Protein backbone atom coordinates (compact mmCIF):
# COMPACT_ATOMS: atom_id res chain seq x y z
CA UNK A 1 0.00 0.00 0.00
CA UNK A 2 2.68 2.46 1.05
CA UNK A 3 5.16 1.35 -1.53
CA UNK A 4 2.27 1.31 -4.01
CA UNK A 5 1.83 5.02 -3.32
CA UNK A 6 5.55 5.60 -3.84
CA UNK A 7 5.55 3.75 -7.12
CA UNK A 8 2.47 5.72 -8.14
CA UNK A 9 4.48 8.90 -7.58
CA UNK A 10 7.36 7.54 -9.63
CA UNK A 11 5.09 6.43 -12.45
CA UNK A 12 3.22 9.73 -12.60
CA UNK A 13 6.42 11.73 -12.78
CA UNK A 14 7.82 9.38 -15.40
CA UNK A 15 4.61 9.90 -17.37
CA UNK A 16 5.14 13.64 -17.07
CA UNK A 17 8.65 13.14 -18.46
CA UNK A 18 7.27 11.35 -21.48
CA UNK A 19 4.59 13.99 -22.04
CA UNK A 20 7.18 16.71 -21.85
CA UNK A 21 9.07 14.27 -24.10
CA UNK A 22 10.60 14.92 -27.50
CA UNK A 23 13.76 17.00 -27.59
CA UNK A 24 13.83 17.84 -23.90
CA UNK A 25 17.01 19.28 -22.52
CA UNK A 26 18.12 19.42 -18.91
CA UNK A 27 17.76 21.88 -17.32
CA UNK A 28 14.70 23.48 -18.89
CA UNK A 29 13.09 26.77 -17.83
CA UNK A 30 9.57 26.33 -16.40
CA UNK A 31 8.64 29.70 -17.94
CA UNK A 32 10.86 29.41 -21.00
CA UNK A 33 13.08 32.46 -20.37
CA UNK A 34 16.12 31.31 -22.36
CA UNK A 35 14.05 30.19 -25.35
CA UNK A 36 12.13 33.47 -25.37
CA UNK A 37 15.30 35.58 -25.17
CA UNK A 38 16.71 33.69 -28.14
CA UNK A 39 13.57 33.80 -30.26
CA UNK A 40 12.76 37.48 -29.48
CA UNK A 41 16.38 38.55 -29.82
CA UNK A 42 16.01 40.73 -26.73
CA UNK A 43 17.49 40.35 -23.25
CA UNK A 44 15.60 42.54 -20.78
CA UNK A 45 18.00 43.61 -18.05
CA UNK A 46 17.48 45.75 -14.96
CA UNK A 47 20.33 47.92 -13.65
CA UNK A 48 20.58 49.44 -10.21
CA UNK A 49 23.31 52.04 -9.60
CA UNK A 50 26.24 50.76 -7.55
CA UNK A 51 29.58 52.61 -7.37
CA UNK A 52 32.31 50.68 -9.14
CA UNK A 53 29.86 48.14 -10.61
CA UNK A 54 26.97 49.88 -12.35
CA UNK A 55 26.90 53.51 -13.55
CA UNK A 56 23.53 54.75 -14.77
CA UNK A 57 24.39 58.41 -15.42
CA UNK A 58 24.93 57.90 -19.15
CA UNK A 59 22.42 57.15 -21.90
CA UNK A 60 22.93 53.42 -21.32
CA UNK A 61 24.13 51.83 -18.09
CA UNK A 62 27.87 51.30 -18.08
CA UNK A 63 30.53 49.91 -15.76
CA UNK A 64 31.84 46.39 -15.09
CA UNK A 65 28.52 44.60 -14.84
CA UNK A 66 26.64 46.25 -17.73
CA UNK A 67 29.69 45.54 -19.93
CA UNK A 68 29.61 41.86 -18.92
CA UNK A 69 25.88 41.73 -19.67
CA UNK A 70 26.39 43.34 -23.11
CA UNK A 71 29.07 40.75 -23.95
CA UNK A 72 26.83 37.91 -22.75
CA UNK A 73 23.97 39.23 -24.91
CA UNK A 74 26.36 39.59 -27.84
CA UNK A 75 27.40 35.93 -27.53
CA UNK A 76 23.73 34.94 -27.39
CA UNK A 77 23.19 37.09 -30.49
CA UNK A 78 20.56 39.30 -28.87
CA UNK A 79 20.09 42.98 -27.98
CA UNK A 80 19.94 44.31 -24.39
CA UNK A 81 16.89 46.32 -23.34
CA UNK A 82 17.80 48.22 -20.16
CA UNK A 83 15.53 49.18 -17.27
CA UNK A 84 17.02 51.38 -14.55
CA UNK A 85 15.60 51.19 -11.05
CA UNK A 86 16.28 50.55 -7.38
CA UNK A 87 17.11 47.08 -6.20
CA UNK A 88 13.69 46.37 -4.69
CA UNK A 89 11.96 47.58 -7.86
CA UNK A 90 14.14 45.29 -9.99
CA UNK A 91 13.43 42.34 -7.70
CA UNK A 92 9.71 42.92 -8.20
CA UNK A 93 10.16 43.08 -11.99
CA UNK A 94 12.07 39.78 -11.85
CA UNK A 95 9.30 38.21 -9.78
CA UNK A 96 6.71 39.44 -12.30
CA UNK A 97 8.74 38.14 -15.21
CA UNK A 98 9.08 41.65 -16.64
CA UNK A 99 12.88 41.43 -16.87
CA UNK A 100 15.23 38.46 -17.36
CA UNK A 101 18.28 39.61 -15.43
CA UNK A 102 19.29 42.29 -12.95
CA UNK A 103 22.69 43.69 -11.96
CA UNK A 104 23.68 46.23 -9.31
CA UNK A 105 26.81 45.25 -7.41
CA UNK A 106 24.83 42.56 -5.63
CA UNK A 107 26.67 40.07 -3.41
CA UNK A 108 25.68 36.55 -2.34
CA UNK A 109 24.68 37.94 1.07
CA UNK A 110 21.85 40.09 -0.27
CA UNK A 111 18.39 39.76 1.30
CA UNK A 112 16.46 38.82 -1.88
CA UNK A 113 17.52 35.18 -1.91
CA UNK A 114 13.98 33.81 -1.41
CA UNK A 115 12.48 36.04 -4.10
CA UNK A 116 14.91 35.78 -7.01
CA UNK A 117 17.49 33.30 -8.21
CA UNK A 118 21.13 34.22 -7.64
CA UNK A 119 23.90 33.06 -9.93
CA UNK A 120 26.93 31.42 -8.45
CA UNK A 121 29.38 34.25 -7.65
CA UNK A 122 31.36 35.21 -10.73
CA UNK A 123 33.99 37.33 -8.99
CA UNK A 124 35.35 37.70 -5.48
CA UNK A 125 36.85 41.04 -4.46
CA UNK A 126 38.08 42.53 -1.21
CA UNK A 127 35.12 43.99 0.59
CA UNK A 128 34.47 47.70 0.26
CA UNK A 129 34.91 49.49 3.57
CA UNK A 130 35.82 46.30 5.36
CA UNK A 131 37.37 46.65 8.78
CA UNK A 132 38.56 43.06 8.83
CA UNK A 133 41.81 42.21 7.03
CA UNK A 134 41.22 39.93 4.03
CA UNK A 135 37.42 40.20 4.11
CA UNK A 136 35.95 39.57 0.66
CA UNK A 137 32.58 39.86 -1.00
CA UNK A 138 31.26 37.55 -3.68
CA UNK A 139 29.40 39.25 -6.51
CA UNK A 140 26.38 37.64 -8.15
CA UNK A 141 23.67 38.53 -10.66
CA UNK A 142 19.94 38.17 -10.10
CA UNK A 143 17.79 36.02 -12.38
CA UNK A 144 14.13 34.92 -12.22
CA UNK A 145 13.58 32.23 -9.60
CA UNK A 146 13.82 28.69 -10.97
CA UNK A 147 14.57 29.60 -14.60
CA UNK A 148 17.32 27.03 -14.45
CA UNK A 149 18.30 26.80 -18.12
CA UNK A 150 18.76 30.57 -18.32
CA UNK A 151 20.62 30.66 -15.00
CA UNK A 152 22.87 27.74 -16.00
CA UNK A 153 23.59 29.35 -19.40
CA UNK A 154 24.60 32.60 -17.71
CA UNK A 155 26.74 30.85 -15.07
CA UNK A 156 28.47 28.78 -17.73
CA UNK A 157 29.18 31.92 -19.77
CA UNK A 158 30.52 33.73 -16.68
CA UNK A 159 32.78 30.76 -15.89
CA UNK A 160 34.28 31.00 -19.37
CA UNK A 161 34.26 34.78 -19.92
CA UNK A 162 33.97 36.38 -16.48
CA UNK A 163 36.77 38.32 -14.77
CA UNK A 164 37.79 35.23 -12.75
CA UNK A 165 38.04 32.94 -15.77
Amino acid sequence: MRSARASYAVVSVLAAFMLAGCGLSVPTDPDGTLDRVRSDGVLRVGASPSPGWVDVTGERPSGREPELVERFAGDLGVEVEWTVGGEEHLVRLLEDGAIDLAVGGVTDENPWVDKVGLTRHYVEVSAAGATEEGATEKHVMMVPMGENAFQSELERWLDENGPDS
Partner: protein
Amino acid sequence: MSAGSDAADEGYSARFGHVELPEDEAGALRRAKRLEVVTLAFMGSAIAVVYLTMGSSQAMKTAWIEDMLALVPPLAFLVAVRRARKRPTPDHPYGYHRSTAIGHLTAAVALLVVGLSLTVDSALGLLRAEHPPIGTTELLGHTVWSGWLMIAAMTYTGIGPFVLGRLKLPLAEQLHDKVLYADADMQKADWMTAAGTIVGVLGIGIGLWWADAAAALLISLSIVRDGWKNLRSSSDALMDQRARTFDDGRPHPVTIEVDEVLRGLPWVADSRSRVRDQGHVFHIEAFVRPRAGEVADLERLEEAVAMLRELDWKIHDVVLMPVRDLPETIPDPRP
Protein backbone atom coordinates in the same frame (compact mmCIF):
# COMPACT_ATOMS: atom_id res chain seq x y z
CA MET B 1 3.47 -18.35 43.36
CA SER B 2 5.96 -16.58 41.22
CA ALA B 3 9.08 -17.34 39.30
CA GLY B 4 11.61 -15.64 37.12
CA SER B 5 14.31 -17.27 35.08
CA ASP B 6 17.45 -17.29 37.16
CA ALA B 7 20.20 -18.52 34.90
CA ALA B 8 22.33 -15.82 36.43
CA ASP B 9 25.60 -16.47 34.73
CA GLU B 10 27.62 -13.24 34.83
CA GLY B 11 29.83 -14.33 31.94
CA TYR B 12 26.86 -14.25 29.56
CA SER B 13 26.40 -10.92 27.83
CA ALA B 14 23.41 -11.64 25.55
CA ARG B 15 20.53 -11.09 27.90
CA PHE B 16 17.69 -8.77 28.69
CA GLY B 17 17.56 -8.28 32.47
CA HIS B 18 17.92 -11.82 33.81
CA VAL B 19 16.44 -13.40 30.66
CA GLU B 20 19.18 -15.26 28.85
CA LEU B 21 18.70 -15.03 25.11
CA PRO B 22 18.56 -18.28 23.15
CA GLU B 23 21.54 -18.73 20.85
CA ASP B 24 19.75 -17.54 17.68
CA GLU B 25 18.40 -14.45 19.39
CA ALA B 26 21.80 -13.67 20.92
CA GLY B 27 23.25 -13.72 17.40
CA ALA B 28 20.42 -11.52 16.16
CA LEU B 29 21.11 -9.00 18.93
CA ARG B 30 24.79 -8.85 18.03
CA ARG B 31 23.91 -8.32 14.35
CA ALA B 32 21.36 -5.64 15.24
CA LYS B 33 23.89 -3.72 17.32
CA ARG B 34 26.46 -3.93 14.55
CA LEU B 35 23.88 -2.74 12.00
CA GLU B 36 23.02 0.25 14.17
CA VAL B 37 26.67 1.26 14.47
CA VAL B 38 26.98 0.96 10.68
CA THR B 39 23.81 3.07 10.37
CA LEU B 40 25.24 5.80 12.59
CA ALA B 41 28.48 5.88 10.60
CA PHE B 42 26.67 5.89 7.26
CA MET B 43 24.18 8.58 8.24
CA GLY B 44 27.09 10.66 9.55
CA SER B 45 28.71 10.49 6.11
CA ALA B 46 25.35 11.25 4.43
CA ILE B 47 24.97 14.34 6.61
CA ALA B 48 28.41 15.51 5.45
CA VAL B 49 27.65 14.84 1.76
CA VAL B 50 24.29 16.64 1.84
CA TYR B 51 25.87 19.56 3.71
CA LEU B 52 28.48 19.92 0.97
CA THR B 53 25.98 19.81 -1.92
CA MET B 54 23.03 21.68 -0.42
CA GLY B 55 24.10 25.20 -1.34
CA SER B 56 21.19 27.55 -0.73
CA SER B 57 18.53 24.98 -1.62
CA GLN B 58 15.80 24.92 1.00
CA ALA B 59 14.75 21.40 0.00
CA MET B 60 18.25 20.06 0.54
CA LYS B 61 18.38 21.86 3.88
CA THR B 62 15.23 20.02 4.93
CA ALA B 63 16.77 16.74 3.80
CA TRP B 64 19.81 17.57 5.91
CA ILE B 65 17.77 18.12 9.08
CA GLU B 66 15.94 14.86 8.38
CA ASP B 67 19.22 13.01 8.09
CA MET B 68 20.16 14.32 11.53
CA LEU B 69 16.84 13.16 12.98
CA ALA B 70 17.48 9.75 11.44
CA LEU B 71 20.29 9.38 13.99
CA VAL B 72 17.74 9.30 16.81
CA PRO B 73 16.31 5.75 16.37
CA PRO B 74 19.71 3.99 16.15
CA LEU B 75 20.90 5.91 19.22
CA ALA B 76 17.63 5.09 21.01
CA PHE B 77 18.11 1.41 20.16
CA LEU B 78 21.70 1.23 21.39
CA VAL B 79 20.86 3.06 24.62
CA ALA B 80 17.71 0.97 25.18
CA VAL B 81 19.34 -2.46 24.74
CA ARG B 82 22.17 -1.37 26.98
CA ARG B 83 19.76 -0.34 29.72
CA ALA B 84 17.57 -3.40 29.20
CA ARG B 85 20.52 -5.69 29.98
CA LYS B 86 20.64 -4.53 33.56
CA ARG B 87 19.37 -7.00 36.14
CA PRO B 88 16.55 -5.97 38.47
CA THR B 89 17.60 -3.98 41.52
CA PRO B 90 15.68 -3.30 44.74
CA ASP B 91 14.61 0.03 43.24
CA HIS B 92 13.73 -1.51 39.87
CA PRO B 93 12.23 -4.89 40.79
CA TYR B 94 10.80 -5.36 37.28
CA GLY B 95 14.17 -4.74 35.66
CA TYR B 96 14.89 -2.16 32.98
CA HIS B 97 12.98 -3.66 30.06
CA ARG B 98 10.76 -0.62 29.67
CA SER B 99 13.74 1.33 28.35
CA THR B 100 12.69 -0.24 25.05
CA ALA B 101 9.28 1.40 25.25
CA ILE B 102 10.91 4.76 25.93
CA GLY B 103 13.26 4.22 22.99
CA HIS B 104 10.28 3.31 20.82
CA LEU B 105 8.44 6.47 21.87
CA THR B 106 11.52 8.59 21.17
CA ALA B 107 12.01 7.05 17.73
CA ALA B 108 8.30 7.46 16.94
CA VAL B 109 8.39 11.17 17.79
CA ALA B 110 11.50 11.65 15.62
CA LEU B 111 9.76 9.88 12.72
CA LEU B 112 6.61 11.96 13.12
CA VAL B 113 8.60 15.22 13.26
CA VAL B 114 10.43 14.30 10.05
CA GLY B 115 7.12 13.55 8.33
CA LEU B 116 5.42 16.73 9.52
CA SER B 117 8.35 18.99 8.65
CA LEU B 118 8.50 17.50 5.16
CA THR B 119 4.72 17.85 4.73
CA VAL B 120 4.65 21.50 5.77
CA ASP B 121 7.73 22.34 3.73
CA SER B 122 6.50 20.74 0.52
CA ALA B 123 2.88 21.90 0.90
CA LEU B 124 4.03 25.51 1.40
CA GLY B 125 6.29 25.21 -1.62
CA LEU B 126 3.35 24.10 -3.76
CA LEU B 127 0.97 26.74 -2.37
CA ARG B 128 3.44 29.56 -2.91
CA ALA B 129 4.26 28.13 -6.35
CA GLU B 130 7.96 28.37 -5.52
CA HIS B 131 10.13 27.68 -8.54
CA PRO B 132 13.23 26.02 -7.06
CA PRO B 133 16.43 27.46 -8.50
CA ILE B 134 19.09 24.90 -9.37
CA GLY B 135 22.07 26.47 -11.08
CA THR B 136 25.46 25.08 -11.91
CA THR B 137 28.55 24.02 -10.00
CA GLU B 138 32.12 24.23 -11.12
CA LEU B 139 33.59 20.76 -10.82
CA LEU B 140 37.19 20.06 -11.84
CA GLY B 141 37.16 22.90 -14.33
CA HIS B 142 33.81 21.93 -15.85
CA THR B 143 30.52 23.71 -15.34
CA VAL B 144 27.87 21.09 -14.55
CA TRP B 145 24.23 21.44 -13.65
CA SER B 146 23.97 21.10 -9.83
CA GLY B 147 20.92 18.86 -10.27
CA TRP B 148 23.19 16.01 -11.37
CA LEU B 149 25.28 16.42 -8.22
CA MET B 150 22.16 16.44 -6.06
CA ILE B 151 20.97 13.25 -7.75
CA ALA B 152 24.35 11.65 -7.12
CA ALA B 153 24.27 12.72 -3.45
CA MET B 154 20.70 11.43 -3.03
CA THR B 155 21.58 8.11 -4.67
CA TYR B 156 24.36 7.73 -2.13
CA THR B 157 22.22 8.72 0.87
CA GLY B 158 19.35 6.52 -0.33
CA ILE B 159 21.22 3.24 -0.91
CA GLY B 160 22.38 2.85 2.70
CA PRO B 161 18.94 3.13 4.33
CA PHE B 162 17.40 0.93 1.60
CA VAL B 163 19.78 -1.93 2.43
CA LEU B 164 20.04 -1.38 6.19
CA GLY B 165 16.27 -1.09 6.71
CA ARG B 166 15.71 -4.39 4.94
CA LEU B 167 18.34 -6.11 7.09
CA LYS B 168 16.81 -4.76 10.30
CA LEU B 169 13.20 -5.87 9.79
CA PRO B 170 13.73 -9.61 10.34
CA LEU B 171 15.92 -8.87 13.38
CA ALA B 172 13.19 -6.63 14.82
CA GLU B 173 10.78 -9.55 14.55
CA GLN B 174 13.16 -12.11 16.00
CA LEU B 175 14.18 -9.94 18.96
CA HIS B 176 10.67 -8.53 19.39
CA ASP B 177 12.32 -5.11 19.40
CA LYS B 178 10.02 -2.25 18.50
CA VAL B 179 12.78 0.37 18.56
CA LEU B 180 14.48 -1.58 15.80
CA TYR B 181 11.16 -1.78 13.98
CA ALA B 182 10.63 1.99 14.24
CA ASP B 183 14.19 2.46 13.05
CA ALA B 184 13.48 0.30 9.99
CA ASP B 185 10.51 2.62 9.33
CA MET B 186 12.84 5.61 9.63
CA GLN B 187 15.20 4.06 7.10
CA LYS B 188 12.30 3.52 4.76
CA ALA B 189 11.42 7.20 5.20
CA ASP B 190 15.03 8.07 4.37
CA TRP B 191 15.33 6.12 1.16
CA MET B 192 11.87 7.12 -0.02
CA THR B 193 12.73 10.79 0.58
CA ALA B 194 15.97 10.32 -1.35
CA ALA B 195 14.12 8.60 -4.22
CA GLY B 196 11.49 11.34 -4.18
CA THR B 197 14.16 14.02 -4.32
CA ILE B 198 15.79 12.33 -7.31
CA VAL B 199 12.47 12.20 -9.15
CA GLY B 200 11.76 15.80 -8.10
CA VAL B 201 15.14 17.13 -9.25
CA LEU B 202 14.76 15.34 -12.59
CA GLY B 203 11.32 16.90 -12.88
CA ILE B 204 12.76 20.36 -12.20
CA GLY B 205 15.40 19.56 -14.81
CA ILE B 206 12.75 19.25 -17.51
CA GLY B 207 11.01 22.41 -16.38
CA LEU B 208 8.36 21.06 -13.99
CA TRP B 209 8.86 23.39 -11.06
CA TRP B 210 6.27 21.55 -8.92
CA ALA B 211 7.85 18.09 -9.32
CA ASP B 212 10.11 18.22 -6.26
CA ALA B 213 7.46 19.54 -3.87
CA ALA B 214 4.78 17.17 -5.20
CA ALA B 215 7.01 14.09 -4.84
CA ALA B 216 8.02 15.20 -1.33
CA LEU B 217 4.40 15.77 -0.32
CA LEU B 218 3.33 12.29 -1.42
CA ILE B 219 6.20 10.69 0.47
CA SER B 220 5.75 12.85 3.57
CA LEU B 221 2.18 11.61 3.97
CA SER B 222 3.38 8.02 4.27
CA ILE B 223 6.11 9.07 6.75
CA VAL B 224 3.54 10.88 8.90
CA ARG B 225 1.40 7.74 8.84
CA ASP B 226 4.30 5.57 10.00
CA GLY B 227 5.24 8.08 12.69
CA TRP B 228 1.67 8.31 13.97
CA LYS B 229 1.30 4.52 13.99
CA ASN B 230 4.52 4.12 15.99
CA LEU B 231 3.59 6.93 18.38
CA ARG B 232 0.23 5.31 19.10
CA SER B 233 1.60 1.81 19.58
CA SER B 234 4.49 2.96 21.76
CA SER B 235 2.20 4.95 24.05
CA ASP B 236 -0.29 2.07 24.12
CA ALA B 237 2.50 -0.26 25.18
CA LEU B 238 3.48 2.14 27.97
CA MET B 239 -0.14 2.00 29.13
CA ASP B 240 0.13 -1.79 29.53
CA GLN B 241 -1.78 -2.70 26.42
CA ARG B 242 -1.88 -6.45 25.92
CA ALA B 243 1.23 -7.70 24.17
CA ARG B 244 1.18 -7.30 20.41
CA THR B 245 3.40 -8.58 17.61
CA PHE B 246 6.66 -6.73 16.84
CA ASP B 247 4.93 -4.62 14.17
CA ASP B 248 1.86 -4.05 16.36
CA GLY B 249 -0.17 -5.67 13.60
CA ARG B 250 -2.20 -7.95 15.90
CA PRO B 251 -2.30 -9.27 19.48
CA HIS B 252 0.66 -11.53 20.13
CA PRO B 253 -0.36 -15.22 19.86
CA VAL B 254 1.08 -15.82 23.34
CA THR B 255 -1.77 -13.77 24.84
CA ILE B 256 -4.20 -16.51 23.70
CA GLU B 257 -1.90 -19.51 24.11
CA VAL B 258 -1.39 -18.89 27.83
CA ASP B 259 -5.04 -19.60 28.64
CA GLU B 260 -5.14 -22.49 26.15
CA VAL B 261 -2.22 -24.18 27.87
CA LEU B 262 -3.65 -23.64 31.34
CA ARG B 263 -7.13 -24.86 30.37
CA GLY B 264 -5.52 -27.93 28.85
CA LEU B 265 -4.27 -29.04 32.29
CA PRO B 266 -6.45 -31.82 33.74
CA TRP B 267 -6.87 -30.11 37.12
CA VAL B 268 -7.81 -26.68 35.70
CA ALA B 269 -11.45 -25.79 35.06
CA ASP B 270 -10.86 -22.31 33.65
CA SER B 271 -8.24 -19.59 33.47
CA ARG B 272 -7.90 -15.89 32.76
CA SER B 273 -4.65 -14.01 32.11
CA ARG B 274 -3.04 -10.66 31.37
CA VAL B 275 0.06 -10.52 29.18
CA ARG B 276 1.87 -7.22 28.88
CA ASP B 277 4.91 -6.31 26.88
CA GLN B 278 7.72 -5.11 29.13
CA GLY B 279 9.93 -4.45 26.10
CA HIS B 280 11.47 -7.56 24.48
CA VAL B 281 9.98 -9.76 27.22
CA PHE B 282 6.47 -10.41 28.46
CA HIS B 283 5.08 -10.25 31.94
CA ILE B 284 2.21 -12.68 32.62
CA GLU B 285 -0.34 -12.72 35.41
CA ALA B 286 -2.61 -15.76 35.16
CA PHE B 287 -5.48 -16.84 37.38
CA VAL B 288 -6.65 -20.46 37.37
CA ARG B 289 -9.81 -21.99 38.84
CA PRO B 290 -9.13 -25.65 39.82
CA ARG B 291 -11.78 -28.28 39.07
CA ALA B 292 -13.99 -29.32 41.97
CA GLY B 293 -12.09 -31.74 44.17
CA GLU B 294 -8.69 -30.92 42.62
CA VAL B 295 -5.97 -29.26 44.62
CA ALA B 296 -3.62 -26.64 43.14
CA ASP B 297 -0.51 -27.70 45.00
CA LEU B 298 3.03 -26.40 44.50
CA GLU B 299 4.04 -29.22 42.13
CA ARG B 300 1.12 -28.56 39.81
CA LEU B 301 1.66 -24.78 39.85
CA GLU B 302 5.39 -25.12 39.17
CA GLU B 303 4.68 -27.54 36.34
CA ALA B 304 2.17 -25.09 34.85
CA VAL B 305 4.66 -22.21 35.03
CA ALA B 306 7.30 -24.36 33.36
CA MET B 307 4.87 -25.20 30.54
CA LEU B 308 4.13 -21.50 29.98
CA ARG B 309 7.86 -20.77 29.82
CA GLU B 310 8.18 -23.36 27.08
CA LEU B 311 5.86 -21.30 24.88
CA ASP B 312 8.35 -18.54 24.06
CA TRP B 313 11.73 -17.23 25.21
CA LYS B 314 10.05 -13.85 25.67
CA ILE B 315 7.97 -15.14 28.57
CA HIS B 316 9.87 -13.73 31.46
CA ASP B 317 7.96 -13.12 34.67
CA VAL B 318 5.05 -15.47 35.32
CA VAL B 319 2.72 -14.99 38.25
CA LEU B 320 0.26 -17.88 38.54
CA MET B 321 -2.54 -17.61 41.06
CA PRO B 322 -5.13 -20.27 41.96
CA VAL B 323 -8.51 -18.65 42.69
CA ARG B 324 -12.02 -19.76 43.67
CA ASP B 325 -13.60 -17.45 41.03
CA LEU B 326 -11.91 -15.86 38.03
CA PRO B 327 -11.51 -12.10 38.50
CA GLU B 328 -14.31 -10.27 36.71
CA THR B 329 -12.18 -7.19 36.27
CA ILE B 330 -10.07 -8.87 33.58
CA PRO B 331 -11.81 -8.97 30.18
CA ASP B 332 -11.71 -12.22 28.22
CA PRO B 333 -8.82 -11.84 25.74
CA ARG B 334 -10.41 -14.27 23.25
CA PRO B 335 -11.74 -12.55 20.14
